């Protein structure tokens, strides 16, 4: 089942399905290791505010708006 990253619960492991945003943003996320097919751990996801992900071996902060555009399963 796919859903927006912003909906994923804290502590869950999800796989990135699709990134619905501009080429530039896709590229930036890619440089940080977040591209289609990556598995990420949702390290922190409060009701509002940015989401923190563990990607590869680092932690990445992604704004809530952006997190809504990343589809995961």
């Amino acid at each position, binding site marked *: 089942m796919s859903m927006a990253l912003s909906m994923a619960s804290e502590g869950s492991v999800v796989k990135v399905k699709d990134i619905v*945003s501009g*080429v*530039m*943003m*896709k*590229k*930036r*996320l*890619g*440089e*940080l*290791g977040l*591209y*289609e097919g990556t598995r990420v751990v949702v*390290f*922190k996801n*409060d*009701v*509002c*505010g*940015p989401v*923190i992900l563990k*990607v*590869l*071996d*680092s*932690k*990445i*902060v*992604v*704004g809530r*708006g*952006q997190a809504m555009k990343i589809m995961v399963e």
Partner: protein
Amino acid sequence: MSHKLRVALSGNPNVGKTTLFNALTGAHQHVGNWPGKTVERKEGQVKYKEHDIEVVDLPGTYSLTAYSIEEIVARDYVVDDAPDVVVHVVDACNIERNLYLCTQLLELGANVVVALNMVKMAEKKGISVDEAKMSHFLGVPVVKIEANKKAGIYELLDVVVDAAHKRKEAKLPVTYGSEIEGHASEIEVMLDKIEVPSRYSVKWLAIKLLENDSQVVDKVRKIVGGKDVVDEAGRKRDHLLEVFGEDVDCSVADARYGFIGGVVRESVVKEEVNRLSTSESIDKVVMHRVLGIPIFLAVMWMMFQVTFSAGAPFMELIDFLVGLVSDGAGAFIDGAGWPMWVNSLVVDGVISGIGAVIIFVPNIFLLFMMIAIMEDSGYMARAAFIMDKVMHKVGLHGKSFIPMIIGFGCNVPAIMATRTLENEKDRILTMLINPFMSCSARLPVYVLFVGAFFSSYQGTIIFLIYLFGVFVAILSGMLFKRTMFRGLSSPLVMELPPYRWPAVKGILIHTSERSWLFVKKAGTIIFAIVVVIWVLASMPWGVEYASQESFIGQIGGVIAPVFTPCGFGDWQSAVALLFGFAAKEVVVGTFGTLYGVSDAGLSEVITGHFTPLSAAAFVVMVLLYVPCMAVVAAIRRETNSWKWPLFVVVYTCVVGWVCAVIVYQGGLLLGFV
């Protein structure tokens, strides 16, 4: 015979690149700017086994595309200046992400040596690396180092020297798949027919053209016949988009990660460690939904307490020394029989003016040190996360908060730090509100006034002044966002570096550099202004020094009525504010010169000229009005127009004046004096 070598350090942010740079070059370094750019350029020298090695610290980037100034600077250096060796610093805890940049360096045809840093930390996390295998698969030497303990530095230098001598034709280990490679080689053939400067790898250019890299496209288009190549690349790009259903950039990135994945599988063993790392446990607390902001405020409050309490004894010492110099110089001039005016210039003008400013060096040193510790420990990025919600109200994201904190030290580097923001609107908005972040140059003024009137709560009151600045910044931001900067800001994406103990040496180097800049300013700009004030205060001939009949008294008298509603309509304050435009710390120096007393005596004299209420209004004015010429110049440089700097000058003056009036008149109404 000694050989000259040029070595560049490259790497992601937070991988210990600067620590390695400091370990290599020690004190022999030089900080400047890249030609024509405002990106900081660090260079240093190291002598090793008959080699004079010049080390250049490239800006920390994640990639070498043409999207940010830092990336272009790094890329141009590697291509145009062709360093003998590029040392790519890799954080052993995060090899995959770090190697992404490495593949791009290899594509550029750089002579790469990989320095694997923080191996011990990685081993604790259950990551072990076989450097021989990694070297084999990457096709470049790999050396393990521990930059903060200076371990492995000589081994690294050996490998670097060795690599510089047998520079071989770089072969690109990454393959992009037959479809892309096929089209790329067709473009390569076309590129071979036109006159491409030889320093570029044709293969790299071909891939970059397919990726539609703006800078490369522009460069090729300028070559005779280049336009056809660009057009053809555009067609192939469209074709590939049809074939893969995604942009070439994505396929290329996939290929890079695929290659890296292979290298890592062969050479790195990762044990699953499931316990929470220390870093994560700390994060659970400091980034807590409810506790985050109180903890952040507590950290800031502590920062100011330390700045003042630890600075006090040093300030007394400097005060004592300035007193000695002042007495000594006075006695010497009298003894030598020089005219009275020389004595007045030296003692009243120069020594009391500069003395009043130099006394704040301990405070400023400590404040910069606290900010550097916050940055290096990794807490700064957390602060950005915590403040993201608040900043969203302004229409900015948490990353804009980092330049604002740096603004507490000095607005000039803060304005430069806005470069990390991708969106132009976000950048300008952050620059516009940054001057309200109270910089260390304003500190002397607060210390003087708060010390004179409210000495028992000094740390707390100064903390409140800073908070008030933040408050005005946020309010202004909201106003701008709803008027001039409508529309979405770019999304927040940033890395949270792991917590680290800051390296003492790095902190000290960084802090002394910044403090030295302050001292230099005191010695140049402030010196010049102090002399100008002295001349204006002594002219026309025969007037009493710094009296109302002097030129400066007359100038002040003209401006002063403007500040009557604020409660400080005397001419000395007007003159101090006027000269404060050059640099805020001059305000104190000006009072020193105008009242003809140095630091210690100044606070007594001030209590005679101000009431607690008018002092509060004056402090608010100093907090909010134009930071200084240097900031105006920085905004001009960064926005490349006069519109925004002029706007900042007018806007901040108006806001400062209005707030000062509100404080004074409001205070009167409430019955304060």
